[in-house]
């Protein structure tokens, strides 16, 4: 069964007097443990689509099911609870909390969102610190580490709750090429290890090839789907 199923979803915005159609009749399915990329130029609807999948926004039309949940029906509190339990987020600007150390940033969702017992928290955080290669930096604050390291911490934070899905909006946009590859490879490694579905958006053609399934967006529509080992249309 598909982890994500979108059927004819559209999203309209009102910008001042003007109505903007960010997504138009988009349908797709994403299987568990996939490594998926949405690509397209700025304004094509990548971020809007990720926001809908991430329960940060609701479609104007259509049905969107994530992990067997019709996310359009969730209220504010239920959306937050669903995100905390099911989805991990990686942001373009890393968005680590500056007052928390690397260790505490990774621990945050377990502590403040899921209320995991201390011993289990320690076990999971320590394992992820080792997995992303940040064990020796765990007591540093975000302003004491590099951009690549920050994104590694963000990946660990996204994975610490054992989510079914990790969404990454332009995760490599603020990184140099080598670091961007390193981050993507880390994401892929984490996917292999934890069987978590990774979906990321990018407009960087050089790293797109790292994805196993690529959805191309243009003017709010899926223009094509490319799967490693074959092509298709969405």
């Amino acid at each position, binding site marked *: 069964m598909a982890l994500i199923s979108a059927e004819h979803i559209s999203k309209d915005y009102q910008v001042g007097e003007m109505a903007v159609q960010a997504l138009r009749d988009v349908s797709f399915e994403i299987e568990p443990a996939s490594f998926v990329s949405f690509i397209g130029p700025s304004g094509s609807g990548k971020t809007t689509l990720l*926001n809908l999948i*991430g329960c*940060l*926004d609701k479609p104007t039309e259509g049905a969107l099911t994530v992990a067997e949940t019709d996310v359009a029906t969730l209220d*504010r*509190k239920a959306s*937050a*609870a*669903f*995100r*905390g*339990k099911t*989805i*991990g*987020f990686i*942001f373009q*600007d890393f*968005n680590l*909390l*500056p*007052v*928390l150390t690397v260790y505490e940033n990774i621990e*945050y*969702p377990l*502590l*403040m*969102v*899921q209320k995991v017992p201390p011993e289990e928290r320690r076990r999971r955080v320590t394992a992820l610190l080792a997995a992303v290669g940040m064990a020796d930096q765990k007591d540093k604050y975000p302003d004491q580490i590099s951009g690549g390291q920050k994104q590694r911490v963000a990946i660990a*934070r*996204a994975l610490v*709750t054992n989510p079914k899905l990790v969404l990454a909006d332009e995760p490599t946009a603020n990184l140099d090429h080598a670091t961007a590859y390193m981050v993507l490879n880390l994401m892929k490694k984490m996917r292999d290890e934890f069987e978590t579905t990774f979906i990321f958006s990018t407009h960087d053609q050089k790293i797109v090839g790292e994805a196993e399934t690529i959805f191309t967006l243009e003017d709010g529509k899926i223009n094509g789907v490319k799967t490693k080992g074959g092509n298709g249309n969405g």
Partner: protein
Amino acid sequence: MGNLFKIAIRNLLRYKRRTLLTASLITVGVVFVLAFVSISGSFKNMMIGQITDSMIGHLQVHRKGFVASIETLPLNLNLKGGAIGRLEKILNEQPEIEAYSPRVKFGGMFSNFTETSSIRLTAIDPEREFKSVPLLPERVMDGGKDLKPGGILIPELLSRGMKVKPGDAVVIVATNADGSVNGKQFTVTGVMESATGPGGRDGYIHMDDARELLRMEGQQVSEYAIRLKEFGSLTAFGEKLDGLLAKELNQQGKPLFEVHTWEKLSPFFNIARMIDLMTFFIKLMLIAIVLISIMNVMIMAVYERIREIGTIAAIGTLPGKILSMFVIEGFCMGVAGALIGDIVGIALVYILNLLKISYNFGQQKGIILQAGISTADILMISATVIIVSVIASLQPAFKASRMEPIEALRHV
């Protein structure tokens, strides 16, 4: 909860200068209020002490109707024989009472053999009176303090105006309850300063002399002045005594006695209330300082951390927890301000007492300021600051908790 406090404190320390300024503002407010409460409280207590301990007593019992006619000092409303016995029996049974003293009050004419003026006299049993109003002897500014039969303590006004000094002979002429006029010669024992101001015409004679002067048959008492062991129990005891005495009825089946606390007998109670009112407004100013400063800081904190709020909301932090984070920040700032303010305020009160600042009150000169602050006042002021801090944080915190993560994450 501990983690929410940890995050809140770290966020406060993130903007050290701003936090320090706000906490300092609250501290200054708390210190100012503590100093004002302690000084005004000291002045109020001194004033109440002077009034109750040198003249009125903590409370008084009269025959019903006496206080309404107190201007004419009616002798026909004195308590007599059986009523006195019943009243003293009740008073003797009250463990709250330290001492009580019977008095006879009447008006008369004071003559130095060449001039005559009016005088208000209180006849007392000195030993019992000085236990009930222990500061009364302190009011004797010239001459002896020991009032014996045949002696009179005269007010400063008459001493000055009629050039009478201790040891001089004077005559008191008074009308008794039957309307006949009697006179008696006295020797001036001492000159007293007035407790009510320079116009006071109150003098004191011995109870035995009053009986002779007024030709009283049997024992008569105009009022009983009562001193309690604990002044703080005045209201409760006043109500208790009132209840007990309400059961004592006269032959017509109506209440025989009436109880009045000092508050109902002295105009100085209004000054005490004015001090309380001023203290209340000073506390209101503190509340305004805390409210505005904390709200300002918290609004800034929310505005500066919109993206962080978006991040924690996106990763699943519930709105209630986001609200708690910001409320706890305000709470911590309030606690810090109150705590430091309490410490500095107590130190300031201690220093004020060490300096032994003196001031004058009415006829009293060189009264040493004895600033004091009760634990209840400190706790009340601290609790007010902390509660107001939390209230001031609520609006910004609520705004933060209601932010749409998608919009917060877009914020630049």
